[in-house]
């Protein structure tokens, strides 16, 4: 069973608020990822990290930012949330040199 956690699971906030979505894994994986997925649609890679102090933007442009200060922790921050940010955000991790990504349960964000 994968040990990757995301909090909160659901979040409803007003426009302009700053939020941080938490993601933690206890598997010691170096690679971590953030995906954005609208209902019934594709997953889009928005950020990834190959290890501590390493972060890169994915294919989908995102106004969010990430940090990787500890191996197990990969939070995503929106400085000023907008209704266009309403979506599901999925965090994943994997070992270096192996394709199997372990996904967290996701955070469903609604911005009013």
């Amino acid at each position: 069973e994968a040990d990757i956690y995301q909090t909160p699971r659901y979040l409803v906030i007003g426009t302009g608020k700053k939020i941080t979505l938490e993601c933690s894994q206890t598997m010691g994986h170096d690679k971590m990822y953030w995906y954005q997925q609208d209902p019934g649609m594709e997953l889009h890679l928005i950020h990834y990290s190959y290890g501590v102090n390493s972060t890169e933007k994915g294919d989908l442009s995102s106004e969010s930012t990430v940090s990787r200060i500890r191996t197990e922790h990969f939070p995503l921050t929106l400085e000023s949330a907008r209704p266009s940010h309403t979506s599901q955000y999925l965090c994943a991790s994997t070992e270096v040199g192996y394709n199997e990504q372990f996904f967290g349960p996701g955070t469903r964000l609604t911005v009013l």
Partner: protein
Amino acid sequence: LAKTTQPISMDSYEGQEVNITCSHNNIATNDYITWYQQFPSQGPRFIIQGYKTKVTNEVASLFIPADRKSSTLSLPRVSLSDTAVYYCLVGDINGSARQLTFGSGTQLTVLP
């Protein structure tokens, strides 16, 4: 980037074998083929991964012809709980995370 093409949807009946084919005509030498399953409101879950010929695990088989330009995920004796979206990914396990795009997936509906 190796682009993948899958059927948008498939229907099957309980107890039948289901085969989902993925086309990846420009697969590269170092690319592996990985399949994921996703239920509504959950993150994708790894099913199987292969490089060539046939791979089998406790839940599925993956058939890859010699030219590797396509692959077929085979689910034996499906049940209602196998109703989900199935994604085919192609990418270098040691390459950039940008290579691992999920695409639209195939919505499998298992009918009683």
